[in-house]
């Protein structure tokens, strides 16, 4: 059993002696997801951030940056669709997700978010190729849709980047569930870092200033949010420090700080440093997503992270007498009956 590992010097919530389990077997089941899912989290974030950058560049008439960011968004959303479908137990039934829209299912909401975002991003990217489309109805439609599609994609993009945190948190996987307050900020920070970094690689130093600013802001947000998340997770925060997840998170922090410093100091001057920094930022963002994903999987496999926080909540008398929120009433009329009695 891993020791405290110096998690902010906090005392362990429940000493090992009083922690029991059924022969050390997991209580909850880890999501049956492969690396497709963290890849999807990363690519979706990269696409979202790039669409925002592209819309900004479009309005500011920064043609090189706009083109680079739109093409990145196109590639990333294509890749994320593939990853998402590939991870299903029955990929041929992907369309079954389009038969319902369920507010209680973040995956259902996410399906509709990417279904709305995808065509907008594709149309925006297509308008970069108007020269290659033979003149006619299609070419007129594409050039007419140019800016509206880009703006539409950018309006959906922030939700595309942050909803994935809800997707993970709305589970019984301890490291994902306990981090629900801060994880959306970790994820949008990571999206900004990735999109900024990729645009630094794909466009000239002169035109990449907005990308650098986005990347630096994203890096700061990501680094701070992940620390705040760990502080709020109690004993479960260990899972972000230990094993593969710990290695990924530390690597992500190193790459993100390195990339951000590189862009601050040499971003305007050196194309070479811009390339290296951009790459570090993109990889750092990917490591964050894979690290958070791994932390969840390892937290589900160890019964300690399910049992100890629940024992603590029982000792604190917390959840059973939980006040009902407005959400409860909306979600389950049963609560309305209880409170009106």
């Amino acid at each position, binding site marked *: 059993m891993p020791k405290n590992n110096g998690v902010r010097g906090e005392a362990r919530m429940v000493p090992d002696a009083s922690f*029991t*389990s*059924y022969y050390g077997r*997991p*209580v*909850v089941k*880890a*999501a049956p*997801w492969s690396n497709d899912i963290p890849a999807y989290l990363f690519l979706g974030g990269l696409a*979202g*951030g790039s669409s*925002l*950058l592209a819309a*900004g560049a479009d*309005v*500011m008439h920064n043609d090189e940056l706009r083109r680079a960011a739109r093409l990145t968004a196109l590639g990333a959303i294509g890749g994320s669709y593939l990853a998402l479908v590939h991870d*299903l*137990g029955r*990929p041929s039934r992907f369309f*079954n*997700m389009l038969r*319902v829209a*369920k507010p209680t*299912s973040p*995956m*259902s909401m996410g399906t509709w978010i990417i279904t709305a975002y995808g065509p907008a991003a594709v149309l925006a990217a297509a308008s970069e190729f108007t020269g290659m489309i033979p003149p006619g109805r299609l070419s007129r439609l594409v050039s007419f849709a140019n800016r509206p599609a880009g703006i539409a994609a950018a*309006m959906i993009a*922030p*939700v595309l980047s*942050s909803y994935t945190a*809800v997707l993970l*948190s*709305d*589970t*019984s*996987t301890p490291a*994902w569930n306990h981090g*629900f307050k*801060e994880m*959306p*900020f970790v*994820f949008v920070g990571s999206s*900004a870092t990735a999109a900024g970094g990729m645009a630094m690689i794909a466009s000239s130093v002169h035109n990449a200033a907005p990308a650098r*600013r*986005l990347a630096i802001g994203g890096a700061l947000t990501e680094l701070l949010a992940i620390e705040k998340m760990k502080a709020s997770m109690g004993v479960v925060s260990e899972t972000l420090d230990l094993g593969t997840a710990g290695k990924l998170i530390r690597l992500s922090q190193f790459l993100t700080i390195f990339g951000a410093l590189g862009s601050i100091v040499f971003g305007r001057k050196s194309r070479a440093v811009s390339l290296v920094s951009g790459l570090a930022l993109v990889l750092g963002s990917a490591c964050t997503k894979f690290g958070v994903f791994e932390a969840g999987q390892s937290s589900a496999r160890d*019964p300690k992270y*399910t*049992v100890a926080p*629940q024992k603590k909540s*029982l000792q604190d008398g917390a*959840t*059973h*007498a939980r006040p009902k929120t407005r*959400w409860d009433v909306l*979600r*389950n*009329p*049963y609560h309305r*009956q*209880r409170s009106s009695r």
Partner: protein
Amino acid sequence: MSKTIVHLGLDPAKISGWDVAQPRMGFFTDTSLCIGCKACEVACKEWNEIPEDGLDWLGISYDNTGSLGASSWRHVAFIEQAVPGGRTDTPSSASALDGSDLRWLMSSDVCKHCTEAGCLDVCPTGSLFRTEFGTVVVQDDICNGCGYCVAACPFGVIERRTGSHGTKNVGLAQKCTLCYDRLVSGMTPACAQACPTESIQFGNLSELRSRARRRVEKLQLDGNRAARLYGDDPNDGIGGAGAMFLLLDQPEVYGLPPNPVVATRELGQMWKQAGIAALTFLIGAAAASIER
């Protein structure tokens, strides 16, 4: 409106839109009567045509099933436990080992058919649904195997079936249906039918609940102070279970979570945080884009 809901009582089937009146059905598993014979596991596999999923020796106890899963819809936990201070009704050879007494705890675990079911809440295809009996069932022809329900379940019950190509329902989420096909014909679920000691009792949930309360009171009066009910409280984190248990030790000893709370209860707050983060991102990106 509120009057009708009061009338609904504990019935999640009605809340889900069923207007054919059926009492909520469920299980009461009285583990003090379980002898660990695993007839429930076998009967369940037989009736539901569940494929074989490994004939391994786990080397932990007489339990070689290990846990509930895609192809184990009943699981008999088997705990060999030292009882400090000891009891007198176990074989003396056991206490000779280390001066303490040993006892065996056996419990047949099953899907809890929660009032607030996490699996059902998060299912993005509508494959998981609430039956007219208040139970929670997967529709095999709709599930696309996304696996979200697996992570959402607070009890680690539902699982995506693995196996070679051609295995029945491979790649789909699978779990106890509370023998939905038997229930619609007025029959008892296979596990309860097969149980030789009536440790597994099936019936009208409110009736089972009062039976369970009488039973735990009796055991406590008989001196079994650790006896407790699990999943019987409609005010717990899952709104009460459709399958409750009488346990002789703490839930986690049996591999059950001590205080499960369905994640969906916090979903409103989760979306709020995600919304604030998204707005921050939008404003931040706009600010980063402004060029002089």
